[in-house]
């Protein structure tokens, strides 16, 4: 974990509402693992504003990539960052996804949830499928980058403007049935809104596979000190505890979560 002042190298809009920010982050980028995140202090936000957490989308020779959607005060100001400006970054934070997998990987993304899954896809030896959903075609991001690495991509949008019309769980169900029919196993790696995480976790339970969910909670410290970001969890012996999403997570296996 480091606390660095990082220079903006590139900053571009990738689609309506979404931007790609590349920072020079040295050791933060070198030591990052898929599923981890960084905590940014957005310059230009008024003094005393809290940091904002963002998944690590990719790392490339000391560069840290962040794919983000502007949704509020902080991310609106963040959009104005210019190359050459500097941003305070704490990271890499959190536990990250498990990596050495035996069975087929199915990545399931909603909106900017695709960010940590791309970094994961670059590190998984065996290619699989990305199932991605959103409200409309505008929320379907960077799928070409997965295709370029040899991943199959299946899209679902609520308004039908891209891929099949419906929720991400519709095509996911087809994939789970396919895997079941071949007698193989699979594991899900999931990032998106809470409702989606829950629905996917439930499907995973029905099909007897593991689902690694990346939780999104509002954070303050990002390092496990303030207890603002907690989630009730279940141990294998059935007892429960209250974990910190920032430092015990953000990745938990669906069966651990007490919704």
């Amino acid at each position, binding site marked *: 974990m480091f606390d660095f002042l990082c220079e903006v190298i590139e900053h571009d809009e990738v689609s309506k509402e979404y931007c790609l920010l590349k920072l020079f982050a040295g050791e933060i980028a070198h030591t990052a693992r898929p599923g981890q995140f960084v905590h940014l202090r957005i310059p230009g936000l008024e003094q005393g504003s*809290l940091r904002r957490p963002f998944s690590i989308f990719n790392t490339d020779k000391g560069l840290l990539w962040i794919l983000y959607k502007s949704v509020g005060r902080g991310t609106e100001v963040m959009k104005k960052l210019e190359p050459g400006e500097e941003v305070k970054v704490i990271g890499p934070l959190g536990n990250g996804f498990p990596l050495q997998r035996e069975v087929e990987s199915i990545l399931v993304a909603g909106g900017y949830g695709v960010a940590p899954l791309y970094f994961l896809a670059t590190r998984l030896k065996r290619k699989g499928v990305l199932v991605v959903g959103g409200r409309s075609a505008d929320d379907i991001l960077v799928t070409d980058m997965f295709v370029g690495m040899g991943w199959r991509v299946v899209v679902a949008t609520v308004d039908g403007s891209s891929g099949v019309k419906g929720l991400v769980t519709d095509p996911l169900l087809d994939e789970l049935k396919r895997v079941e029919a071949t007698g193989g196993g699979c594991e899900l790696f999931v990032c998106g809104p809470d409702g989606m995480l829950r629905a996917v976790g439930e499907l995973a339970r029905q099909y007897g596979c593991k689902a690694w969910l990346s939780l999104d909670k509002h954070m303050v*410290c990002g390092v496990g000190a303030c207890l*603002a970001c907690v989630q009730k969890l279940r141990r294998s012996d059935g007892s429960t505890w209250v974990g910190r999403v920032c430092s015990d997570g953000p990745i938990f296996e669906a069966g651990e979560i007490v919704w």
Partner: protein
Amino acid sequence: MSLIEMSVNLGGVRMKNPVTVASGTFGYGQEYADLVDITRLGAVTVKGVRNRPWEGNDLPRHVEVPGGMVNAIGLQGPGVDGFITQYMPFLREKGVPVIVNIWGTDIEEYCEVARKLSDVPGVAGLELNISCPNVKEGGNAFGTDPQVVAELVGAVRAVTVLPLIPKLAPNVPDIRVFVRAAQDAGADAISLINTIPAMVIDIETRKPVLSNRVGGLSGAAVHPVAVKLVWEASQVAKVPLLAMGGISTAGDAIEFMIAGATAVAVGTANFIDPSTPLRVIAGIREYLERHGMHAVGELTGSLV
């Protein structure tokens, strides 16, 4: 660098400089240890502990507001035994003085926790949280009645020789009454302020934002309120004051010391910039040099 005496004695807690961290904003020290050399702090003040593990409030537990945040964490923690076994070994190894913030729902619980901590090597003092706005029983209810404060401090005094530092609530009509009550009952130092009771409403849903409905305001917004209370407290205090509330620069800390504080604690600012306490230490030293002072104690109560 010229020789400047930075050490202070906070009612028996010997600090090599006057800067600690505020309870609940620095975990148990180890969470920030990758980012901050905690051995350079005057002391580490840890998150509030009670006699047993406690889950705290439901989410949302915080909300950002202009100049700070409102929180209602609800004092989640591993309990005193868990604290001693899980967190003290690390802090002891670091050799930094540890101030343990303790709470309970009745006086006996404070005493029980204080007794257990009295035999633990590395614990330098106890901060009595009698002013948390975020728990249903105890908490602020203790801190807003001077008689209860006297009774509680007196009872804990009877069970421990550790330095006792009651932490006062800001939402009282006259802070001096509470300072007197605490010191007369045997407090070795007094800490102030805890967060200021506060509430935020989501106007779209017309519901309180925090699950606990109300919480405590902290951060830059509370600083002038805290300065005024520290200044008033210093008028009657015979014991040293540990001041906190919205410190984000050395200037904020120096202001508290001029108002009468012996030591200071950095709270919410840790979340934004974990290097704040170390910057504050360096800034105080630089200020003393610039003003030709030789000891940080010269600042305390130097208001003109």
